[in-house]
């Protein structure tokens, strides 16, 4: 099954946030940088799950850039133990729009975003723990903090 290309991902995120984004594919996952976020996508019509696992700092850069925050403000808000609703809502929207590139041939529906992988739907958790196919990327965002991004598939 064809996997989403790094150029398709770079184009989608660049268009979304209005800053140049580069995705470069790697053989292995990037070392984790701080807290991780896990996003579950239901693939139709197979009803199986794909999972995006990425650094919170990277996804926060996408979300913050989308709503016009500076890199310094994004860092402050991510470090603040009190949840920032506007950043979280923007992050949710970014990962919803990312459903467009999660699967090349099938429809992907964003089911949810989790800081704790044990909270993933069971089928999505299985994909995370034992993926049949994994694509790993190093992401660089012009002017913002980048990081690691992995797309995990059950087939």
């Amino acid at each position, binding site marked *: 099954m064809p996997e989403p290309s790094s150029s398709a991902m770079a184009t989608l995120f660049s268009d979304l946030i209005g800053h140049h984004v580069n995705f470069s594919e790697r053989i292995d996952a990037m070392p984790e940088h701080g807290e991780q976020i896990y996003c579950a996508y239901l693939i139709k019509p197979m009803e199986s799950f794909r999972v995006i696992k990425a650094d919170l700092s990277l996804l926060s850069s996408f979300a913050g850039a*989308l709503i016009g925050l500076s890199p310094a403000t994004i860092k402050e808000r991510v470090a603040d133990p009190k949840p920032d609703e506007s950043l979280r809502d923007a992050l949710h929207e970014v990962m919803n729009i990312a459903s*467009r590139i999660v699967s090349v041939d099938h*429809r992907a529906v964003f089911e949810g975003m989790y800081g704790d992988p044990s909270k993933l739907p069971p089928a999505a958790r299985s994909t995370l723990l034992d993926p049949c196919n994994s694509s790993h990327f190093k992401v660089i965002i012009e002017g913002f903090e980048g990081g690691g991004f992995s797309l995990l598939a059950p087939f």
Partner: protein
Amino acid sequence: MDLLLVDDSRTMRLLVHRAIRQAGYRGLTVCEAENGADALEKLKSVKPKLILSDWNMPEMSGIDFLRKLRAENNLTPFGFITSESSKKFKELAISNGASFIIVKPFNVDEVQDALEPILGEG
């Protein structure tokens, strides 16, 4: 009332607002709703010239909202702003009475091209 904007994401409502302003429609009056059910409630008191709606929303999806509107003979021009981009979804939207689909992520030109035939030049 010029525009009813229906989306469960506050971020997306903000981005659509911004794109509309950047497209030159600075004086538009905009009413917001969080899903189809909320929008139907708002439509009891407002008569927009255009409805812009997301597709995937809790409580009532955009396509169910559109079907309900048309079943009530409400012919207000209706456009989707959605991450659903397949041909199947476009056909479903148009066959149910939508005028256009703007696919996320969108740019100002796409918003302007969609709004101009209905609202005139910005």
